């Protein structure tokens, strides 16, 4: 048995990808641009090593508990000290595995997917930077450091959404993503300032103790938790800051898989989990988290029902699943939420890679131009099917287990949200199988000349690995081991895999999911039900969903453009140039005018000047004499 892992390994986990970024941007791109493949290889090597180290760290945490890692001082001013440090506890160890494993798979996949792109080097530089920053976020032991990496992953998200910056839609989406998440970060930053002014610390473990001990409590704690949650809402694209994520699909698909499905968007969930004691001791904060989560789950799923773009369906699905996780957290289910995050990372990344694989051969993401791809792309089809079954929550795939745990938590804590979540189960199964049937079933609806083929092995292998995880990752908690590792529940036996059905709840959710699949089957595969007829029957809903509840218009056209930029800001600008600067120029003109008035007195006639002098002398002498006689 190995000893406890040296703490340098934890530093190396997040520094390695950052080094990869530095090497690619400062060495490979300027000097080895003729060998672009190198950048991909460096990235894979760095992230692969991080993965191995993460496994080692996980093993060490399982066997010997959390690592203690010496801190480094960042800034000291007076009695304020900000440190850099790493927190390697079970939560971080699990997140490390998710991030490094998914990232590694996606880098491998990208070797082929980004093959002909002129921005190959840039792509891998940004991917390395992202992975490093995400790992830094996961490992941060204090709020400042967490915020630093939180913003850096936001930067990477911006850079990668706008990777094809010459597309106006991509450029706009990148900007939107950054600004909308920053609205949430406003709350997060204020919460950090607030917590520091109350407690004098940024240290997460210390804040946990203060919340548990009740030093930090009441309204103060609620406001702090809600501020932090605002950051999480932005990052995890929860209602009402959800609008950026569907647009973020303008980025390359592996980016969507890694950043906008598996890891970065889950950072909001991670943040709440990381500061869970602060939330758990404020009932109001918990209720807020649960309601926002539960509402977002069904709200996003409703839009996912009607989208025609595969990636957009998946984007809404991601928002919805993140809503589930938030609901789980709000219902005091820390372990179920993180377990769902864990499972979701694998099957959602797989779904995106599947979508990428499909578009690799068809050149589109529009499902209306697909169909019948199952025959040409058996591997993609099979893996996509596994992921769809998993996300739909079909026993015994991974999604079933974690979704069931969240539903159980919600049943106990938030009954209304439980019902919403159950409807969402139906919707999820429906929209995923709608995608599956439209894409892989039926006949090909694209152009005639298309030569459909399976993607290269480099892309298929990561998909197969992820599909194995999509089947198996849920089994990790069958005995309760995963939850126990995160500090909840006890370890049971393997019989749970069957005894779970002793309770009616799993039956219900399973039946609901199967009904959803069945409906999709009848509408899009056998066409016993006409999708068009149903769409017309419920046309107000169809319009509402497909117009995304008009949130984009509300935010962008009405709030930002009409009210702010062309409203308030325009008035201020006019005020600035007319009133403030106008007053200055007015004063100048007034001075000139006064000058020209006085100039008239300057006639150049000596006798007039003489007269004026004499009058002046008389007045001055007179007043002096007056003062002398009367004032004296």
């Amino acid at each position, binding site marked *: 048995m190995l000893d406890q892992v040296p703490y340098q390994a934890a530093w190396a986990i997040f520094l390695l990808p950052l080094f990869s970024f530095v090497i690619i941007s400062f060495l490979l791109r300027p000097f080895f641009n003729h060998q672009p493949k190198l950048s991909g290889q460096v990235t894979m090597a760095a992230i692969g090593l991080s993965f191995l180290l993460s496994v080692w760290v996980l093993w060490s945490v399982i066997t010997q508990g959390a690592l203690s890692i010496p801190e480094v001082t960042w*800034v000291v001013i007076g009695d304020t000290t900000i440190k850099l440090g790493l927190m390697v506890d079970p939560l971080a160890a699990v997140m490390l595995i998710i991030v490094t494993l998914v990232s590694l798979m996606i880098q491998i996949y990208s070797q082929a997917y980004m093959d002909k792109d002129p921005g190959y080097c840039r792509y891998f530089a940004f991917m390395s930077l992202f992975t490093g920053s995400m790992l830094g976020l996961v490992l941060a032991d204090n709020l400042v450091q967490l915020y630093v990496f939180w913003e850096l992953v936001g930067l990477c998200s911006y850079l990668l959404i706008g990777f094809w910056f010459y597309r106006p839609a991509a450029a706009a989406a990148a900007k939107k993503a950054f600004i909308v998440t920053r609205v949430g970060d406003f709350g997060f930053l204020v919460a950090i300032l607030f917590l520091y002014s109350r407690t004098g610390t940024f240290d997460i473990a210390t804040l946990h103790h203060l919340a548990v001990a009740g030093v930090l409590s009441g309204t103060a704690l609620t406001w702090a938790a809600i501020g932090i949650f605002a950051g999480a809402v932005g990052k995890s694209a929860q209602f009402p800051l959800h609008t950026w994520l569907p647009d973020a699909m303008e980025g390359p698909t592996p980016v969507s898989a890694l950043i906008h499905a598996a890891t970065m968007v889950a950072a909001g969930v991670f943040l709440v989990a990381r500061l869970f004691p602060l939330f758990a001791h404020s009932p109001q904060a918990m209720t807020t988290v649960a309601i926002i989560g539960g509402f977002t789950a069904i709200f996003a799923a409703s839009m996912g029902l009607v989208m025609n773009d595969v990636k957009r369906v998946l984007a809404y699905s991601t928002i919805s699943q993140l809503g589930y996780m938030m609901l789980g957290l709000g219902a005091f289910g820390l372990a179920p939420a993180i377990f769902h995050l864990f499972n979701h990372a694998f099957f959602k990344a797989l779904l995106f890679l599947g979508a990428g694989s499909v578009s690799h051969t068809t050149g589109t993401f529009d499902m209306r131009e697909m169909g019948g791809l199952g025959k040409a792309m058996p591997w993609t089809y099979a893996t996509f099917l596994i992921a769809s079954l998993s996300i739909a929550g079909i026993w015994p795939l991974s999604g079933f287990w974690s979704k069931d745990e969240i539903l159980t938590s919600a049943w106990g804590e938030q009954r209304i949200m439980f019902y919403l979540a159950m409807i969402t189960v139906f919707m999820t199964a429906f929209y995923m199988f709608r995608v599956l049937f439209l894409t892989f079933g039926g006949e090909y609806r694209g152009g005639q000349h298309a030569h459909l083929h399976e993607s290269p092995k480099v892309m298929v292998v990561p998909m197969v690995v992820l599909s194995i995880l999509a089947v198996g990752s849920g089994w990790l908690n069958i005995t309760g081991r995963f939850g126990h590792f995160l500090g909840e529940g006890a370890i049971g036996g393997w019989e749970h895999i069957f005894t779970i059905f002793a309770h009616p709840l799993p039956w219900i959710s399973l039946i609901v999911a199967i009904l959803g699949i069945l409906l999709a089957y009848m509408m899009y595969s056998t066409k016993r039900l006409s999708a068009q007829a149903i769409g017309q029957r419920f046309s107000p809903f169809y319009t509402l969903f497909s117009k995304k509840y008009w949130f984009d218009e509300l935010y962008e056209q009405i709030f930002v453009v009409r009210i702010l930029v062309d409203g308030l800001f325009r008035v*201020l600008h006019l005020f600035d140039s007319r009133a403030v600067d106008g007053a200055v120029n007015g004063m100048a003109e007034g001075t000139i005018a006064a000058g020209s008035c006085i100039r008239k007195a300057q006639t150049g006639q000596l006798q007039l000047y003489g007269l004026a002098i004499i009058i002046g002398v008389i007045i001055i002498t007179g007043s002096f004499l007056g003062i002398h006689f009367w004032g004296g």
Partner: protein
Amino acid sequence: MDLNIPYLSIIVFLPVVGAIAIALLPGAKAVKRIALTTTFIAFALSVALFVMFGSGGGIQFQERLSWIPQLQVDYFLGVDGLSLPLVLLTSLLGFLAVLVSWKIELRVREYFAWLLLLETSILGVFSALDLFLFFIFWEIEVIPMYFLISIWGTGRKEYSAIKYVIYTIFGSALMLAGILTLYFTTGTFDMVQLSQTDLVGLRAVIPLSTMFLLFFVGYAVKLPVFPLHTWLPDAHTDAPTAVSVMLAGVLLKMGGYGMIRVCVGIFPETIVHRFAPYLVGLAIVNVLYGAAVTLRQEDLKRLIAYSSISHMGYVLLGVFALSQLSLTGATLQMFSHGMITGLLFAMVGLVYDKTHVRHIPHLGGLARQMPIIAVVFSIAGFAALGLPGTSGFAAEFLTLLGSYSSTIVPGIHIYTILGVLGIVITAGYILWMLERIFYRQALERYDGVRDADGLERATIFTFVAVIILIGIYPKILTDVISLGIQAIL
């Protein structure tokens, strides 16, 4: 070992020596080299000073000579933790400004002479410890600025130059009144002695609060503080690139420096505390109003100019939040903004040099044609919006943290929260600007434009290196700054 080398005098006067050499020596080629050499040596010496600066704090490298004994005016120089980073910033930007001006061809000799004189005057302001001497340096600065804007500028350059001069003189007239009343109250110009004098116990010639306001308004014009800011967009926009770099980079900091050194450092707590709540409120007006107006700008250079107003609001906030943390943050913000906005103006200059366009709606898609300029401009933009890893984050975070946790000004929490709102608007205008200049389809009419050449790259990479260095390891500066602030509070 102590040879009593007058390091500070050498640093302050080297540029003006260069200016004289430029004026006298024949040969046009030597002009730029002389400018480069003198400013570089001044910079290198400032670095040396920074390294040698003792960790004990206090005022170091003092030089004192009696100058006008009848009035007790001394030639008195020295730096502490507050002024040393600003001296370093000035000499660095002075050097970089010469590089930025490398392609100047109009009246080269005059141009560089004025530029160097400008540097000396600013260095003098930051190192003078005698109010009379301070005022002399403060006034000298106006002369080169006037010529630099009105001769080498663009657009309504004469208007902008005269506007700048009138504003500055208005401010310095008030400050002069402040200096004189302070002198007639205390009988000294010595800033060190003044900071140790208890003004409350003395019979002041005018009320102390009036005296405080005279100084404050004088500095507020420079910083600038709303509503005294309208000279700034005009002067910045119409000045030549290197002068905009100096203007935004260091001239504004004279205002912030004066506020800390004189308003906070010399005036008694009761006076400062009485005004602080209003000034903090004004700071938030600066931040939000500046950012809102920035978002409306269509001229690239004017946009950057207006953004300075918003960013200087954080300095004002940090200064009058009156905690050690907030003042350290504000000073770091001055340094950081100097580098970031200096770089932004340099980048605007490059974009304009290559495309001859500054009107944002006419630009677009340039990332294809000028990738390096696009990358560096983006880095500068992200630093301006306070991205972690850049000095902008370190400075703004410390300022906000210090302000929020300050116990002196009532209701500062609300003000600080409003200030945080500024970072959202900043992200808005920076990203919108980057999108409209660099992203979307490449335009055919810019197909021939060149990217930055070797010299330009070296210049802008230097800015980037400093911004990132301070962003990753702000301790280099904050250790020194907080020593200075501790002594002042």
